């Protein structure tokens, strides 16, 4: 299996604050990986570094062997933690925008998912609830046939029933060569669909393991282990 994301001694400082500190990571293709850590542990910073929205202070991050840039953005589908879409736009207009923007965007996939979640493509974003907006954004991101999906807190604002549908969507839309990295703290909801997990704390990787190895060795769920490791 080849590596899709690789970090070597990756470090990011904001003034005097160290957000990511000497991270070494390899994520292979065809995996669904959970990037798990408490608030402020550096999850979003790593994802932003992978997208080239931030540049490393030190060390390297490579996507399919390349530094983040135009070529990697073609193969990376990114769900940011905050919305960046214009809220006066209607959903179908955004779908047209994405079709123009990305070669690998499949509008028919997007319309299909919108229908399943009862979202009207003629609605404007600004008339939607927080949860519905999040669903629209995730639909857009998963409608691309990417090699790496970076989902920053994809299920935080949506109800449990929609959460199940979204997880099913992630499962059915990624292919054997694609990797999905999901950053979240809602672990119990997603651990069944993960291959492996990366625990980070204070900018450092504290554990990488497969979900079943954790259950096997510790006799508890990833959620249970997380609560133990990050006990306040």
């Amino acid at each position, binding site marked *: 299996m080849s590596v899709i994301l690789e970090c070597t001694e990756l470090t990011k400082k904001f003034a005097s604050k160290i957000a990511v500190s000497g991270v070494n990571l390899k994520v292979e293709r*065809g*995996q*669904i990986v959970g990037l798990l850590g408490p608030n402020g542990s550096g999850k979003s910073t790593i994802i932003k570094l992978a997208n080239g929205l931030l540049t490393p202070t030190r060390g390297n991050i490579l996507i399919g062997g390349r530094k983040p840039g135009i070529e990697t953005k073609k193969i990376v589908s990114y769900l940011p933690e905050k919305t960046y879409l214009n809220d006066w736009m209607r959903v179908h207009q955004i779908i047209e925008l994405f079709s123009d923007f990305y070669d690998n965007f499949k509008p028919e996939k997007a319309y299909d998912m919108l229908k399943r979640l009862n979202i009207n493509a003629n609605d404007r974003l600004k008339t939607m609830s927080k949860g519905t907006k999040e669903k629209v954004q995730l639909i857009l991101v998963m409608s691309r046939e990417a090699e790496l999906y970076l989902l920053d807190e994809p299920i935080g604002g949506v109800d449990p029933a929609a959460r*199940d549908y979204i*997880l*099913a969507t992630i*499962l*059915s839309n990624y292919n054997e060569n694609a990797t999905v990295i999901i950053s979240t703290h809602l672990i*119990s909801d997603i651990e*069944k*669909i*993960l*291959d492996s997990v990366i625990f980070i704390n204070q900018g450092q990787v504290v554990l990488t393991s497969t*979900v*079943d*190895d954790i*259950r*096997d060795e510790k*006799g*508890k*769920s990833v*959620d*249970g282990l997380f609560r133990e490791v990050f006990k306040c």
Partner: protein
Amino acid sequence: MPWELKSDRPIYTQLIDQIKLMIFSGAYPPGSRLPSVRDMAKEAAVNPNTMQRALAKLEEDSLIITHRTSGRSITEDTRMVELAKNKLAQEQISEFLEKMQLMGFEQKEILTIINNMVKEMKK
């Protein structure tokens, strides 16, 4: 059949147990074809690689056969199924016997209780 997964055991071992039950109960009769790994994973809401791992183990135990071109099916060898079924029964019963011993029951008492309960159920 709904898939029930607990949080304290590896997911793939639970998938193995549940697929076995589906085979024993006749939900997947001998010789029948299994859905694709992706479809089964989606139905159970688990990672496809985990489902793959469970099916590989069942194949190792000769309960499932993989055809090179046309997916997987349940073995037609009903003897294999019976063997696996008996093994599971023995595991369940020895677990039960251990618990009863912990509660302080003698073997004879246990058998009497079981006999009485079976009679009750027949009524």
